[in-house]
């Protein structure tokens, strides 16, 4: 890791803080990212898209006034552009691209990555062949995205925190004659682990289940009402918990926009929930957040009582009981906001097989495409991609492409089973807030709750929100 970005960031931040006056605080941030996406569609190699970039940002604040500027380019020119923006209140014509050096660009080396590209292409080819053999008559579309992100942050104390993050993300789309569709997304820190964690037979089985669910007539299925018990599988339960945790983001709490502000009753006593970005190997892991604070393991709910929230530097300044460590940004072009990293739920005592075998109807949700919640009302929408209906423990119908609506507060209060089968999610979840996504992970056991009702079943267009 070169020290040049650190020196540039430190020097620039000291200069602008010196001009801003006493009491001013802030941070300088630089990022470099490269994404290579390989596609395979209909037994042919698809296009390869490579997308890279670098940029820098400065954020300064004094009291309740915050200034944020960002610019694309290598660290040196980008920081100079940031300073120019801070100094100027009028709009200059956008500057032309700068080709002078500041930091060695990694993208120039990308063209030499033929070996990695060939590996990705042959992996996708092998995957498609294997899937086609197991599920004939299905058209496959595969995308493998490899992301390499490096960040550098310096705050007013002068310390440099550099981080590097790599992730491989696989998306599989299947379409069978007759229109039945299935989708799956997963990821891992590298391709070897991707193959190990999501082996072909498991993938094929999940796609087959989804296709079978899409084929089945919705009229033969029971209807999910507010009193129907719903069992979220280990890992998938994280999506629901994540929607709850949106209301525990410090800026929403401080603005009075969170449902949990006015709610002193807490949630089910079976729930003990914390956010742990320090846990390695999950999608939302990091050592330092995007404000340069060490990753913070934050307890949020202890036995049903809300005891903490996700904080960043601005929130921590306003309230000393809030700890920073969750300030995250999707890119240098956005200021950081308090966001979740890896959400973990303590395992319970119930055995998942026993819960599945209980008398009556049970909707089992194995995978979700997305979730969206209103932080103030707690109204929640979940897009289920895979699941099943059980009656007295016996399978009665598959579920695919179903939208469930409910209220997250009600849902969390009505959790009556937390199982012992804690597992990580598929490794591709993204938290979208105000249109900008950051990677997140879940480590959760299965949990059962009530209070969801079905909005509609069948094929639906993609919706906005936190996505898998």
């Amino acid at each position, binding site marked *: 890791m070169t020290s040049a970005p650190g020196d540039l960031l430190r020097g620039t931040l000291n200069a602008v803080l010196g001009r801003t006056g006493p009491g001013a605080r802030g941070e300088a941030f630089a990022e470099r990212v490269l994404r290579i996406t390989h596609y395979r569609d209909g037994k042919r190699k698809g296009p390869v898209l490579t*997308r890279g970039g670098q940029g820098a940002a400065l954020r300064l604040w004094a009291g309740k006034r915050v200034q944020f500027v960002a610019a*694309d380019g290598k660290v040196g020119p980008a920081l100079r552009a940031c300073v120019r923006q801070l100094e100027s209140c009028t709009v200059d014509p956008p*500057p032309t691209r700068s080709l002078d050096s500041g930091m060695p660009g990694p993208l120039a080396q990308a063209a030499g990555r033929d070996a990695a590209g060939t590996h990705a292409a042959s992996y996708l080819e092998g995957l498609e062949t294997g899937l086609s053999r197991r599920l004939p008559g299905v058209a496959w579309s595969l995308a493998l995205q490899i992301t390499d992100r490096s960040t550098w942050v310096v705050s007013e104390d002068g310390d440099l925190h550099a981080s590097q993050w790599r992730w491989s993300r696989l998306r599989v789309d299947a379409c069978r004659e007759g229109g039945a569709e299935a989708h799956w997304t997963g990821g891992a820190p590298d391709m070897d682990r991707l193959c190990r964690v999501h082996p072909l037979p498991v993938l094929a089985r999940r796609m087959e289940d989804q296709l079978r669910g899409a084929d089945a007539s919705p009229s033969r299925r029971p209807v999910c009402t507010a009193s129907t018990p719903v069992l979220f599988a280990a890992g998938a339960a994280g999506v629901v918990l994540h929607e709850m945790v949106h209301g525990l983001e410090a800026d929403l709490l401080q603005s*009075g926009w969170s449902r949990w502000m006015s709610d002193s009753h807490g949630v089910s006593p079976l729930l003990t929930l914390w956010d742990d970005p320090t846990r390695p190997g999950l999608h939302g892991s990091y050592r330092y957040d995007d404000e340069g604070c060490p990753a913070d393991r934050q307890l949020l709910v202890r036995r049903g009582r809300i005891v903490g929230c996700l904080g960043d530097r601005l929130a921590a300044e306003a309230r000393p009981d809030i700890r920073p460590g969750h300030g995250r940004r999707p890119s240098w072009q956005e200021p950081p906001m308090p966001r979740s990293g890896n959400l973990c739920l303590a395992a319970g005592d119930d055995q998942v097989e026993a819960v599945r075998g209980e008398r009556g109807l049970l909707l089992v949700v194995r995978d979700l495409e997305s979730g969206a919640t209103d932080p103030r009302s707690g109204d929640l929408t979940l897009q289920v991609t895979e699941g099943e209906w059980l009656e007295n423990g016996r399978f009665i119908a598959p579920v695919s492409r179903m939208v469930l609506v409910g209220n997250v507060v009600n849902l969390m209060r009505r959790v009556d089973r937390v199982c012992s089968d804690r597992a990580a999610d598929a490794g591709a979840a993204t938290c979208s807030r105000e249109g900008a996504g950051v990677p997140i992970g879940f480590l959760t056991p299965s949990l059962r709750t009530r209070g969801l009702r079905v909005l509609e079943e069948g094929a639906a267009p993609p919706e906005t929100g936190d996505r898998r």
Partner: protein
Amino acid sequence: MKPVADARRAVAAARAAGAGLADAFHRCSHTRFCLDGPGDRFTEGSRLEDGLAIRAWLGRDRDAAWGFAASTDGEPVAKLAERAVWAARGGCGSSGAMPAEERPLPEAGRLPSTFDGELLRASQGELRRRVRRFRKATAVARRQGLPAAISIALTASVIETTLVTTSGTVLCARSTLAAVQVRFPTAFGLCRLEYASCRLSDLEPAPLVALLAAYPAPAGGMARVAVGDGPGSVTGDLVLAAPLVASLVGGVARRAAAAGAAVSWDSGAVLLDDPLRAWAPGTLPFDGEGQVPHRQVLAGPPGRVEGTAPLRLTPVRRSFKAPPAPALTNLILNGVPGGGPADRAHCLVLLEVAASHGSTVLARGVWQRRGRDDLPVLARLDQPLETWLDRQARAGSDPGRFFTGVAFATAPDLILKGVGLRPQP
């Protein structure tokens, strides 16, 4: 001009690296923003985005393969071009869309206006004053019951784009985009209104007050109601507010695009995708492939949609980071006949979409009942928009603003007389 020179060098470098055809797209934008948030926190600043993207094709026709490389970091254009060609080699065998070699060039005199000198000249102080005017205007809505915790975000962007292709096309455009987003807590939760224009002067705060005042203040619970005749239904007027209609026409447009054919409905209303509307936020002087975009009818009466060519959405590059993709630009619903106001003594006003799936929509709104307090409701509509238009919907006030959603969309309020409303348990 440097972007043109860079793009030309990029195309030449791609040819030299072995590409048969190539195009280079440069986009540079300066976006300033002011955010007057809750708790008196005021955030302002700006960002500069600047990047170059190259698409390179190898082979021809069915054997053609293409690759794409984009970068912000000012790496030498030759290296970027090599990367695009490398990506194309990785994608050999793909039947990606080839660029047309003969491209009709937009005529300078016919380009829609998208560049606002006032926005370019506006100082940061001017943007701040504009945000304060919005804040003052929302105080009027507050007096009608809305709480003070409102956040107002204003953004103003200047965008320059350049497209150069191996067939000799060189296209340059300069445009501006201003948008305002207001967030406020209501009985439904945290709500948001957002609209945009190429002109800063189009973002006037006064019309916002009427929209804000329609929302119920955060107190009490929410009732459930289903729209449509059925057992236990009562008859009243139904008003679909402009932001909700703008969201619903987005659904119609996506359906038409997926089917590749315009939706036919019995109403005289016409839904257009118009990338050439002057000052509209989605307007494009040239599309992502360098061709003149064209208006398309996405839905309308049989006389308007029969015999029309299959739909082909405009290939759009909203950023340099991705290759052009078919997208909606400016959705415009017009031709709805005007009519008198709804019976406010007994009327369901639906304001925004809470959730949707297929043709089922959950919408939030207010049930106005004679002699009783307005009741916040969550209403279920089980039929698509055309069903409501077919029932001789009348246009209420026309906002003339483009709301931001799936696409930029403008639509009037729709008023339907004598609709069945069923309270739900």
